[in-house]
């Protein structure tokens, strides 16, 4: 089945099947089965050390950067297992983008930051210009920077830098965007702007958000997945999970009995 037909049939964009990550003796992630539908925002929550960051990093093959981690199981992107031999991780990462905890802007101008991914695939200057404008608009940063894109990225505030990172990731037109606690280094106002961006983006692409902030999950996500000690305990629509979870552990976490 080709990618388009999977999606037009209502199939998931990303599908994890029996996904496990093993390091030395421990199972950091143990047999996770999770699907992600198009145009959705799934929040992945859980106590610290439950493996949510590792989970998200397996979705774009970033776990390969840490030595000693073995990935078992499969992650299907539009029907293809990204861990197959012969699949280039570089390509995977263009389709599945990532935003990190701290704003990680490069030491370049705003324009060059956003253009980074596009320059790698040698788009024409015109294309790049258009794509940048679009990406910055989608990230909700355009109005604040449009008068001078050649400023250094460091002249932006933290929240703006993080939105620039989002724009940078969006510029290569991924279908999926992974976000690993993107607002944890930002103050509440900046966080709010980023959450607004997330709400807009979820109408267009698949967002997978790792967050330790249950309130944030409530505000932006359609679906919540709860991880505990590497296992997927429960997943379901936001309202259900947060108000009427089926599992005991979920209930305890959501009500703050453990963090």
């Amino acid at each position, binding site marked *: 089945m080709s990618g388009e037909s999977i999606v037009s049939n209502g199939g998931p964009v990303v599908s994890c099947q029996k996904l496990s990550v093993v390091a030395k003796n421990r199972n950091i992630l143990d047999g996770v089965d999770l699907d992600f539908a198009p145009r959705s925002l799934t929040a992945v929550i859980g106590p610290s050390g439950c493996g949510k960051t590792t989970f998200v990093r397996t979705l774009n093959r970033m776990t390969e950067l840490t030595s000693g981690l073995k990935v078992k199981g499969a992650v299907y992107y539009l029907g293809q297992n990204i861990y197959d031999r012969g699949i280039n991780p570089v390509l995977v990462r263009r*389709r599945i983008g990532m935003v990190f905890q701290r704003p990680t802007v490069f030491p370049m101008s705003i324009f060059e930051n956003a253009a980074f991914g596009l320059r790698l695939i040698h788009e024409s200057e015109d294309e790049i210009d258009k794509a940048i404008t679009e990406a910055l608009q989608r990230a909700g940063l355009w109005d604040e920077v449009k008068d001078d894109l050649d400023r250094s990225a460091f002249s932006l505030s933290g929240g703006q830098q993080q939105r620039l990172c989002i724009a940078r990731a969006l510029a290569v037109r991924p279908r999926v965007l992974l976000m690993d606690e993107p607002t944890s280094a930002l103050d509440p106002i900046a966080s709010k702007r980023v959450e607004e961006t997330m709400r807009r983006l979820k109408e267009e692409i698949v967002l997978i958000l790792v967050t330790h902030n249950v309130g944030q999950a409530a505000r932006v996500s359609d679906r919540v997945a709860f991880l505990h000690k590497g296992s997927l305990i429960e997943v379901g629509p936001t309202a259900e999970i947060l108000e009427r979870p089926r599992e005991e552990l979920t209930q305890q976490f959501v009500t703050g009995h453990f963090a």
Partner: protein
Amino acid sequence: MATALVSATGADPADDLRRGDTLALRWRTGFDKSMGYLLPLLFLVALIPIIDLVWYISSQAIPTLSWQVLTSYGNYQSQDALGVPIVTTFLFVTLATTIAVCIGLFGGIATAEFLSDQTAAWVRTSANLLAGMPSVIVGYFGYFLFCLYFGWGLSFVAGVFTLSFFMCPYVFRTADLAFTSVPRHIREAAYGSGTKPVQYILKVGTPIAFPQILTGVFLAMAIGVGETAPIILTVSPSVLVPTGLLSPATYLTYLIYTGWENAATSHLALVIAYQAAFIIIVTVLALNVVVRVVAAWYRKRLAGLYQ
């Protein structure tokens, strides 16, 4: 506001992870992979010379060395006797290190503990500049100052002081750094509970900083053993152990240099040069290993202090 971008049914060829693997992408990946093989090969540029050098010197020197050679006090210009140069070098290095430690240790601690940030910055800059000065300039300075102005002539004591000036910035830097890296909370706890600066230095700082300071001393010694210019320019050579402060004296590195000068004419000079080079290399490498070991131990200790 998104344009015809990512509609769910939009066919984007890049989505096919297999066919999206275009020529351009394969070129990029291939280039990256080949860099992964080529760049590490550059290590050979550093590895081959050093291995060759150590191997060559060792293979030339070891067959000719014996306990007798090392301890005999004969005239090294007419026979293979390294006793005098070894003892003299030992004297030089010990005395120079003592002076260098006096200057560097106290200076470094003073900089870390007593000086204001502004003054400390100037002092550190000057230590760095001193460390960066070419050995020939320090040698010149020693000659002009000690041999001419002070009137000591080309003497043992002039060499000792010149060498110590060359060595002191290394002790200085490590002492300064050692005390500056005492974990903040420990330092604040000590001063906060009323410890006086001298007490702090003796009872808290020194035990913590000791390994690092030790590495600085060994480092300075390793550098001192291998130096030529500061000695040659300030001390006239002699086949005898120095009898007084103003007497002439020789040095191991001087033997190597002489061996080079007389390589064509004197076989003995060359043999001695190899032997001296071997001894120096062994000493310097041994000191370097000790420094590394102590540094690793120190790092562990420091990490432990942070809990």
